[in-house]
């Protein structure tokens, strides 16, 4: 697995740049990962990231678009404007969480 240095901290990532271990993650690291994705984090981004982090801690899985929408109160269109391309995937990456996956 490739190692990567983010803000002077060496972390282990998967082939797509998702952190293998969440423990070294912090808010500054999130900002750096976001910059690499072409995103400057604002309060609106943090609302999404905080929700995803809290949900992951409780459920052990990255929440889907519907959950962000219905429970987190974040409309799908807004998610796409905050994290263009693949919102859930990008937000999970910035939050230092695993890539959303199926069982195989």
């Amino acid at each position: 697995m490739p190692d990567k240095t983010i803000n002077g901290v060496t972390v282990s990532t998967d082939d797509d740049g998702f952190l293998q271990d969440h423990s070294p993650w912090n808010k500054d690291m999130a900002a750096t990962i976001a910059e690499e994705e072409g995103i400057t984090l604002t309060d609106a981004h943090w609302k999404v990231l905080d929700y995803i982090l809290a949900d992951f801690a409780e459920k052990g899985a990255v929440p889907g678009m519907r959950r962000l929408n219905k429970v987190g109160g974040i409309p799908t269109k807004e998610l796409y404007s905050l994290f263009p391309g693949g919102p859930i995937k990008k937000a999970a990456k910035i939050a230092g969480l695993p890539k959303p996956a199926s069982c195989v």
Partner: protein
Amino acid sequence: MKNLLILGAGTAGTIMANHLRKKMNRSEWKITIVDKEGDHYYQPGFLFMPFRIYSEADVVKPKRKFVGGGVDYLEADVDRIEADANQVHLKNGNTLAYDVLIVATGTTPVPEETEGMTGPDWRKRVHEFYTFEGAKALANTLDDWQGGRLVMHICEMPIKCPVAPLEFVFLADSWLRERGLRDKTELVYATPLSGAFTKPVASKILSGLLEEKQIEVVNDFNISHVDNEDHKIVSWDEREVPYDLLVTVPTNMGDPMIERSGLGDELNFVPTDKHTLQSKAHENIFVIGDATDAPTSKAGSVAHFEAEVLTENILAFTQGKPLPEKFDGHANCFIESGNEKAFLLDFNYELEPVPGKFPVPGIGPMSLLGESKLNHMGKMAFRWIYWNVLLPGHPIPMVGHRMTLSGKKLPEGVKAPQPLV
């Protein structure tokens, strides 16, 4: 007399009824199972119906036949659970009181959740194979298939049997070849995930498969709506995938009764302790199978392993003891890959599918994450095992509810999970 009530006589509910009737003291406990529908479907068989490998008669039998003596079987529609009063209201106006409740109400595809999905193309050019009616309708459509763009599509996760859409495209590929229609058919796989395979080890091993079979993958595709007029699906970021035949997996949701009872999450799945299978909100409610929000596959093998755990926990709970058993998320699934071959997966909450031999370590005879005719024979033999061993609640030799690391080859970088204590 105390009441143990099971809602749902599908795979999970039926196995639970059969386990508990043998183990509970029936002079103290009355066991009742409630289901609104009389037919039990062998759901893994739905995958084979569109290709006419299985007929309707292969996959359906009466539910009552599989619930043994000592259990009251009640055919009724549940209106809602009133958890604070320990009772269940039926749609016919009757009320059932319970001391312990098992929710085994499963999950159902809900095509209405996606705009346009049940429009004019529904059951004509837009199909699904996760219901008996859907699988039958798709078989009829495929009978007339002469070529074009066949799109396999998943609306959103989680879905029942996450490997089935992959199996469908693999089977479609070999079915089309046999009929001389492969050259006239574009096969497309559209998924909201980042790829058809997303777990790293399986992804590395199986990634060539789609290319080999010339199946185009469209990833990160989150559907916004179905355009029935131009026959295309459109994503939230305005990408378009045209189809001549769309085989979709609609949004999967738990029973609407769960929502009416105020017990569900945003998809009507019940928040459940993933290890003990106890409801997070009520200690005398337990949840099993597809009805839970446990982060493992919604699949029969999972329900079967969960049933072994839940039986021990319910027996302890009824005796006022702490819950002794823990579920590790174990799932064991065959993946049909076409041409009468299949793969086998064995994994749990902590460990992704890895290569190895199963069930006898080092010997097999089945290969994990390896393609073989024997795995395919295992899958086809499973229908008999399902009806005759699994549903009656008999143990399957050598396959326990706890996943074992024996026989597995952990690739470099994959950490062995800590055993559950």
